């Protein structure tokens, strides 16, 4: 007799038979096949449940509850349930474990250890509702200084000598991160781009190209050039507010991408410009970039290709030596620099890399900002930082540490209905977000989602203004790198040291 080494289920689906109307709505809505109807009653398969809560939300009688199934594994503080599950999964199936969303290990978040300053007596605070506070940002490379040519004979004859690089204006220092059509659905993309346009903030296209339907939102979209060069043609380059060379992603630094052929349907095929059913492999490195000089070459090539009309940037994952790399990138001609911290999300990444590679974004922002300042480059470049900016507090702290723009994805997905079940790579998202299956995609209402994203970022912006007002600062640009307005209360003074932030009380 063979032993059953199946992984104990995490969840238990509890159906209250008393009030269940047997309408079978839950079975239709469960895309993971955890619920079915056996002719008499609803039966559940706990091993398939991912706790996405779709059935709970859809049950008209409120008869379903998902419970935690953790009662029977013997406790062990070192061999946690998670570690045991990993071993069971790998000894059963073999292979590299997949994962989605961001790092879910309970590692202390530095943002939570930072406190904000506020005005008392000596400098007055500002009422954000009645006095102007600016949250707009100019995105792109700035000149080091502005030079005028003066005609000594005619005093009125002054002309500008400095050549300006392309810049554009956004109303809040917020960017929806790069999620490609492929990782998320058409409806989800549409809702994000519409919201970005309405709010005049930025959204990323991801590395999978830009569908023609989205060209009209181009002025708010940063398109991405990754090692696979999917969907990159002249229209893609010219229909964007900015172009970003993707070197790395916070969730999987040093890793390429792999969209399996079965997910490449007509829509994805059109967007990525590859045949239907063909694998979309992004090589691990760009094979034309093996050095900073090569990177500078691609930046120049993109500037040349777009006739110097849009900012060209580079995205790197926050890794151990981010600061010198960032300096190289800026010297290489990047107009903006995006850093993605180790908690950054993904649609699919090997669990080992998602959970263990990279460094926290808080530290990366601080060291990159400091180093760029030392090299006298900081004011020239726009710094975008992401990798788990969860809510406005994180955004504000990221800006105070040195970022110009905060980039986030998960809050947007959660706003649209995501329950963070972390199964994006399976393409079965019951909420119609991380899936390409038409019957699931239809579940996501574009208008509702767009409005929820607008509401979310509107409130972030209001909260940003509240904080700026309390600090007595009238423009978000004056908060940027203003680390004196932060204090550290965490357990490790070394972190405060690296952040360049004083301990609370100092």
């Amino acid at each position, binding site marked *: 007799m063979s032993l059953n080494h199946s*992984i104990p289920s995490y969840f238990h689906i509890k159906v209250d038979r008393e009030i269940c109307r047997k309408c079978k709505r839950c079975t239709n809505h469960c895309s993971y096949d955890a619920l079915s109807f056996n002719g008499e009653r609803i039966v559940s398969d706990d091993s398939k449940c991912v706790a996405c809560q779709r059935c709970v939300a859809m049950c008209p009688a409120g008869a379903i509850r998902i419970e935690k199934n953790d009662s029977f594994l013997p406790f062990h503080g070192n061999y946690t349930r998670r570690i045991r599950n*990993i071993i069971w999964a790998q000894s059963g199936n073999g*292979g590299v474990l997949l994962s989605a969303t961001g790092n879910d290990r309970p590692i202390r978040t530095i943002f939570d250890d930072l406190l904000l300053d506020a005005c008392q007596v000596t400098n007055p605070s500002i009422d954000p509702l009645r006095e102007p506070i600016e949250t707009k940002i100019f995105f792109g490379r700035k000149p080091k200084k502005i030079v005028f040519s003066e005609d000594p004979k005619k005093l009125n004859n002054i002309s500008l000598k400095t050549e300006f690089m392309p810049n554009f204006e956004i109303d809040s220092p917020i960017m929806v991160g790069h999620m490609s059509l492929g990782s998320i659905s058409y409806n989800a993309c549409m809702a994000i781009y519409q919201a970005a346009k309405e709010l005049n903030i930025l959204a990323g296209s991801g590395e999978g190209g830009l569908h023609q339907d989205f060209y009209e939102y181009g002025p708010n979209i940063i398109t991405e050039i990754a090692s696979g060069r999917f969907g990159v*043609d002249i229209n893609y380059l010219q229909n964007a507010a900015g172009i970003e060379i993707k070197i790395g992603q916070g969730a999987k630094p040093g890793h390429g991408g792999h969209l399996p052929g079965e997910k490449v349907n007509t829509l994805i095929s059109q967007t990525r*410009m*590859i*045949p239907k059913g063909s694998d979309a492999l992004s090589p691990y490195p760009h*094979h*034309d970039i093996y050095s900073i000089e090569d990177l500078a070459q691609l930046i120049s*090539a993109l500037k040349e290709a777009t006739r110097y009309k849009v900012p060209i940037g580079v995205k790197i994952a926050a890794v151990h030596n981010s600061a010198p790399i960032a300096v190289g990138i800026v010297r290489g001609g990047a107009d903006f620099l995006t850093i993605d911290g180790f908690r950054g999300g993904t649609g699919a990444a090997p669990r080992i890399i998602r959970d263990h590679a990279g460094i926290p974004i808080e530290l990366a922002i601080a060291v990159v900002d400091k180093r760029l300042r030392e090299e006298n480059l900081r004011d020239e470049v726009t710094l975008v930082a992401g990798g788990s900016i969860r809510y406005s507090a994180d955004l504000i702290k990221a800006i105070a540490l040195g970022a110009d723009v905060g980039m986030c994805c998960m809050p947007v997905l959660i706003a649209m209905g995501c329950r963070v079940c972390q199964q994006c790579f399976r393409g079965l998202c019951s909420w119609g977000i991380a899936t390409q299956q038409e019957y699931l995609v239809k579940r996501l209402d574009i208008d509702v989602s767009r409005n929820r994203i607008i509401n979310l970022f509107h409130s972030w912006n209001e909260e940003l203004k509240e904080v700026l007002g309390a600090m007595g600062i009238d423009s978000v640009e004056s908060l940027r790198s203003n680390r004196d307005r932060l204090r550290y209360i965490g357990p490790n003074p070394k972190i405060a040291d690296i952040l360049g932030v004083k301990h609370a009380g100092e």
Partner: protein
Amino acid sequence: MIENKEIRYTQEKNTKFEIDTAPNGIPLNYKVLNEKIHQAIQKGYEKVLLNEVCGQRFIGASLQGQIKLEIMGLPGNDLGIFMDGPEIIVHGNCEDQIGNTMNNGKIIVHGDARDVVGLSARGGKIYVKKNVGYRVGIHIKEYENKFPILLIGGTTKDFLGEYMAGGLIIVLGLEIKDDGTVIENDYPICGGELGTGIHRGKIILRTEENLENRLGIGAKVYELKKETEKTITPYIKEFCQIFKIPYDVMNEKPFKVVKPISKRPYGGNYCGNLI
């Protein structure tokens, strides 16, 4: 080569715009040079001749339409990057990454080209008379009516057709001399790691060499089938016509085809359990 230039120039003087890329012997910056090309095209010229090109990068970047660029000299890296339609003829050698992410068009090189020729190209043709370097044809793709073709007259180095996701690479293994005589190339037709990670498309090599021990992961050698031969013949004939070599030499050695073993070489490598 110099004779060539003069003949062509006098014949097509009226429609052709000539740019001296090194006035007074000092090569123009690539920005200035590309701006001049754009201006010429804006003025309505369909043929542009670039004289004495000396390493300027990004020539022909993202150009669109029925334009012909003729280059005398040595263009720098990323010749024809993101190009969509034009034809570039180089009377000389090329550096790295010609036809990078090209969408459509044609690049003809009357000489050598170096590494990463046709990186991620989605369409268009690249014909190189002599030898090329490493990682040629990496990740070339295909899509609808777009089908990239790389035809190399000489030999290649390691990692030919790496990550290949469509299109066609043909390597002839010849040595075409400047006086027009053609002999077999003494060097091996390709290096190691041939077609590693290939998941679509074909690499066709004219050789009697044993390729088995040079194959990369996911690639396999097959004999040339009749129908494949039919599809490649027009391109080879065009190549012979462009570089003025007799087609007969092709029959002296057999063609071998390198194709992917599977469309999903690593499908079973992952495990999606709930942890």
